[in-house]
């Protein structure tokens, strides 16, 4: 099979490429240049491209660099900034997978005549063309990335290989070390790849949108504090929202950019019985309303029992509010059913 491997320059995609070569596939590597601005953690630095290229050379495979900065800006960065401006909490990794890795990259692979693409994600795809494909959690539960892949449909799942999904991270590193790959001991990437860690999110957003000082009020409308930028507050956040040690901790319950107000409340007030979700996508058929599921609301959060209601989920036990913009992903055991965006 001709496989185009998305090589970020990290250890997972390096090993993905190595395993495919070992399995006898006709493998080509490609690194997406996604971000033109300063970055230190992410996927687009010259050093990362160099790592990917050197690994490809070691494996004896061709390596290309695709400049997808225009799509990344339009489909990931601009919506990221707009979400913050509207008081939502975006998940840019989800949008990058949706629009870049499993759309533009996949289309590029198709155009170039590849049978499949591969990435270094920790998740598993099972199935066959006749019975269909399913997306499951990676074997290494701590590294599982099925949450950020929930938008994959049958068409994409059938053309995607995730060679490290059945391995633990330690096994991945051991394979890399045994093969002498220079990425074997490279630290995992963290945080948002297009935001430099030094200046951080507030500086990044401050260059692109106006950040407004906000009032912090309690559920009775009493003014209890202030924040420097209402656009930087996430529902569920505790830090920076008022005096510490004043009895019960306070959490952000709602962010209203229009009135520059953050409403805070107690841990009990943070709990809800249902969460509205929009823009559902499904790995196969849509779940039937009333389906009992486990719902996960952050990349490494705990899945919690819920019922799919069509317009969202009803929690079996009261659950913490989900920040608008975050993905709500539904599982049946370890299998991803689909997901959407918290309203």
């Amino acid at each position, binding site marked *: 099979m001709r496989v185009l491997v998305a090589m970020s320059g990290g250890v997972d995609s390096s090993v993905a490429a190595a395993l495919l070569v070992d399995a006898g596939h006709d493998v080509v590597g490609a690194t997406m*240049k996604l971000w033109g601005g300063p970055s230190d953690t992410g996927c687009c630095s010259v050093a990362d491209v160099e790592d990917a290229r050197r690994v490809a050379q070691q494996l004896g495979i061709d390596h290309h660099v695709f*400049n997808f900065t225009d799509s990344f800006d339009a489909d990931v960065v601009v919506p990221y900034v707009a979400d913050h401006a509207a008081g939502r909490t975006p998940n840019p990794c989800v949008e990058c997978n949706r629009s870049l890795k499993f759309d533009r990259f996949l289309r590029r692979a198709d155009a170039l005549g590849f049978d499949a693409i591969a990435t270094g994600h920790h998740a598993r795809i099972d199935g066959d063309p006749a019975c269909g494909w399913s997306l499951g959690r990676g074997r290494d539960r701590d590294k599982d990335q099925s949450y950020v892949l929930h938008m994959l449909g049958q068409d994409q799942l059938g053309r995607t290989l995730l060679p490290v999904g059945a391995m633990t991270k330690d096994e991945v590193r051991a394979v890399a070390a045994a093969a002498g790959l220079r990425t074997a001991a490279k630290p995992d990437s963290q945080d948002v790849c297009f935001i430099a860690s030094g200046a951080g999110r507030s500086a990044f957003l401050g260059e692109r949108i106006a950040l407004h000082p906000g009032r912090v009020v309690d559920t009775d409308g009493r003014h209890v504090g202030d924040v420097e930028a209402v656009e930087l507050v996430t529902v569920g956040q505790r830090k920076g929202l008022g005096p510490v040690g004043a009895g019960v901790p306070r959490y952000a319950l709602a962010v209203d950019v229009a009135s520059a107000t953050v409403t805070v409340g107690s841990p009990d007030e943070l709990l809800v019985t249902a969460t509205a979700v929009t823009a559902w996508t499904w790995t196969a058929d849509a779940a039937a309303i009333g389906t009992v599921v486990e719902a996960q609301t952050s990349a490494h959060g705990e899945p919690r029992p819920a019922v799919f209601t069509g317009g969202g989920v009803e929690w079996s036990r009261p659950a913490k509010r989900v920040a608008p913009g975050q993905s709500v992903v539904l599982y049946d055991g370890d299998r991803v059913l689909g997901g959407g965006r918290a309203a």
Partner: protein
Amino acid sequence: MVAYLDHAATSPLRPKALAAMEPYLTEQYGNPSSGHSLGRRARQAVDEARETVAACLGAQPGEVVFTGSGTEADNLAVSGARGDGVVVCTAVEHHAVLHPVESVGGRVVGVDGNGVIDLDALAAALDPSVTVVSVMLVNNEVGTIQPLEQVVEVVLAHAPNAVLHTDAVQAFPWVDVSHAARDASLISVSAHKFGGPKGVGALVVRDGTPVRAQILGGGQERDRRSGTTDVAGVVGMAAAMALTHTTRAATVGRVARLRDRLANELLKRVPGTAETGDRGGKVAGNCHLRFEGVESEALLVLLDDAGVCGSAGSACASGAIEPSHVLLAMGLTAAEAATSIRLSLGATTTAEDIDLALKAVPDAVAQLRNG
């Protein structure tokens, strides 16, 4: 078989150049600054190379400064001759000129749809504060030849304190630089664009043109560029230069016919194809086409698979292709620029190379359009 159609990026080392270099990579290892016999032999080789390069560029030997690249020659010209004055260049210069100009807040002059400098805009950008005007002789992407004779007149009329620099890196294989750049005070060339080795360039600095060294040290190159001379490199450059210079007329005629066949056939065979830059105003080796709806980045991968080496835009540090500032300056849209490829021919290009490209390009475009 590989059809190498990227001569504007680099050209294969001519066997004559390699043969000329070989002794200086092996037994003749002396430092030309040394006084002993090995040093003197190296010095003689450098002196002879300098005379050859000077003759091919219409300069005196003492006016030739050997550098480590065309980029270094461009930097030495722009930054070294600037003094405290203002520098001016065109919007389609190579980054080796554009970035030094931009780094000191210089002025950038626009071009027309063929990439030819706007002389009225040049006049408007000039005044007595201007000390360097840099206008390339031939553009690296679209091959457009600039009207240096007219540029000189505008510079003389509007910038009495300026010297004219011309980046002739892309010109030398195709244009008699000794004639075309006769009015320029500073001329840059790069050996590997005409069959010499990589890592060697030269800047002609006409007598009386003040140039401040950018690399300080042992005072080589008459204090204009320190560093031990790359003896084999300059010998190889001189050999390739002499060969190119003496065979240029025949090469231009032959390559222009190959290029015309390539461009005409592709325009005919591939629907939605357009040519960038007036062919009559560009050098013989340049074929610049855009294929509607076809991303050049993908097209180049398929061409590579088929054994055809071409290029698009210029590569950034990561190796990604960046949108071409040249094409945008010529008024192409970003979408048009993203569908553009450059197939550049050279002295070693054969009819078989063109045959392969004429099969591979239509196939690749069809695959990308039809899936």
